[in-house]
């Protein structure tokens, strides 16, 4: 926190130096509390017996039953298996999307080849295609191969994204000077070693951001995993099954919701800054 303060102070002499007043901070605090409240509320209820909901006043402080409710979550759904499935699915998808997007993005940004423009237009056009609408043939295929209920079936439809290619291309176009590619060629480097020794090191920040967003997307996906693999669920699907299994027992469901939010909350604490710069960078390009 102190470092950001120092940076802000350094900026002071350049325009807009006026500090905003209490009203601004009041609004920001209200927004923060509003955004955090539903999570807090589910922790409060998730750590109490369901009976707290029939009190005259909504509860404000957590009760002492969180672990008891969590134990019931573990009894109702295969939590650890689902967690493991989610980790496998999200990691494989992230690795695949980042790898193939970097390869294709590099070629589109820095290599000259016939019909590259037409192909790039195709990529941009397909970005808007909602791939989830292909669930019916994908399901027919997966069932024919006998892959329903497997982690592989969950992974396959999202192995590549057009957005990833577009994102990496936009980044690499600016970040690698054409002279560097030419110089590498003059030095006798072939295309692959140029890619490996010039493009990949330069692309690392963008790869990290793409990885972060792809991981989030894969982790939160619900429709396809629910259709193709309800018997071997990801964490999101397992959580939804918790609700249908005991939709009256609020406190257990909410304890599960808190539990399922923890991994991304940890990711947020570790990589929140990158997440913000990723969102803001994407906006400027978009």
């Amino acid at each position, binding site marked *: 926190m102190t470092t950001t303060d120092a940076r*802000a102070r350094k900026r002071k002499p350049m325009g807009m130096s006026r500090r905003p007043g209490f009203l601004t901070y009041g609004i920001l605090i209200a*927004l*923060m509390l509003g955004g955090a409240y*539903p999570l807090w509320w589910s922790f409060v209820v998730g750590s109490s017996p369901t009976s707290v909901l029939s009190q005259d006043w909504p509860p404000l402080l957590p009760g002492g039953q969180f672990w008891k409710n969590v134990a019931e979550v573990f009894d109702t759904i295969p939590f650890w298996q689902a967690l493991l499935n989610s980790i496998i699915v999200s990691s494989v998808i992230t690795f695949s999307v980042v790898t193939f997007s970097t390869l294709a993005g590099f070629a589109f940004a820095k290599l000259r080849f016939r019909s590259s423009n037409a192909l790039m237009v195709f990529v941009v056009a397909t970005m808007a295609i909602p791939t989830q609408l292909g669930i019916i043939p994908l399901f*027919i295929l997966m069932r024919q191969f006998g892959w329903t209920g497997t982690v592989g079936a969950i992974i396959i439809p999202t192995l590549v994204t057009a957005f990833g290619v577009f994102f990496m291309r936009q980044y690499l176009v600016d970040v690698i000077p054409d002279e560097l590619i030419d110089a590498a060629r003059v030095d006798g480097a072939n295309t692959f070693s140029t890619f490996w020794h010039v493009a990949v090191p330069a692309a690392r920040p963008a790869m990290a951001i793409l990885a972060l967003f792809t991981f989030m997307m894969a982790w939160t996906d619900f429709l396809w995993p629910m259709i193709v693999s309800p018997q071997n669920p990801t964490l999101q699907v397992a959580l939804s099954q918790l609700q249908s299994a005991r939709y009256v027992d609020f406190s257990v469901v909410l304890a599960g919701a808190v539990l399922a939010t923890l991994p991304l909350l940890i990711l947020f604490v570790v990589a929140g800054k990158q997440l*913000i710069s990723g969102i*803001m960078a994407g906006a400027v390009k978009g």
Partner: protein
Amino acid sequence: MTRTLGPETPTSPPASRPDRGAGLTFKNKLSHLDVKYSPYLYVAPFFVLFAIVGLFPLVYTFVVSLNDWNLLSGPGQWVGFGNFVKEFHDELFWNSLFNTISIFLLSSVPQLIAATFIAVVLDQNLRARTFWRMSVLIPYVVTPVAVALIFSNMFSPDGGLVNHLLALIGVDPIAWKLDTLPSHLAIASMVNFRWTGYNALILLAAMQAVPRDLYESAELDGAGSVRRFFSITLPSIRPTMIFVILTATIGGLQIFTEPRLYDAASVTGGGAHRQFQTTVLYLWEMAFQRQNFGRAAAIAWILFLIIVMFGLVNFLISRRIASADSRVVSKRAKRKLQTPGTPTPSTVTASPDTADAGIAETDPAHTHTVTTDTR
């Protein structure tokens, strides 16, 4: 990859002159091949995989939609566009479309306004900027399933937090799950909860690209903060605004998780009277409850076309705005250039030195304005 690498490294021992010459041309040929054709190897994995998991399903969906196709018994009779016709005559389809658009409007319009407001608040010389930016993003890390569970409990008619709070201020309980509009509001609030902060950050990035001295000179001219917002901020962030609207549209028309989990008790999905059954939810019910893949595929294609149509309309509007903008700019520039005494770039290069110098001397003030403008 490594095999093509091998011959290029100068390992082959040059024994005699003609040999060396042959090696060189071979090497040249290889590197020529490398330059000309290897780019395709880099883009191929993406295109091959995309063809399999993105394009093929889309085409195959169309094939399925032209047949009687049951989930269990597989393809039946060819029915042409029969499934499409059935959907257009089915009340449930129109109901789902109405619900989708209603929820979409209830979520996107307030969300855009709120996100713009939050972005304006954040676009100040704040202390601990990163901290506040992170704080508006907290809801984004709560997964849609968790958001749906939490909100469906908060809006629960018995013991839910919202009705509880309403009772405290003397409002009668609202049937959040049974009535159409309240249920749409509740589902829209889930979407708003998760995405407002995210979109605020996108708009904030656009606002920060606006040159600060624009605001300062406007302030010197006596423009208040509201005026500054409407005449400087809003026009400057318009392209980003369109981008946000476009992504919200594509996402909003495919909403599924929130309405599906809003009422787990209903088997059909979307409430007892389908009062909040969205189109993707209807598609899902048609495919996996009613087991009619043919009609479900038809729904998927209709929805796809609707999304493409929305996207195109958005694109055309944004292009019209952009071209209108550039027309204004070029008109202004032309006016500047046409003022007598100002050298246009073409005359400067074409005219002989003496005339050129003469023009430049007559009106130095105008040349100055032109250069500042281009900068």
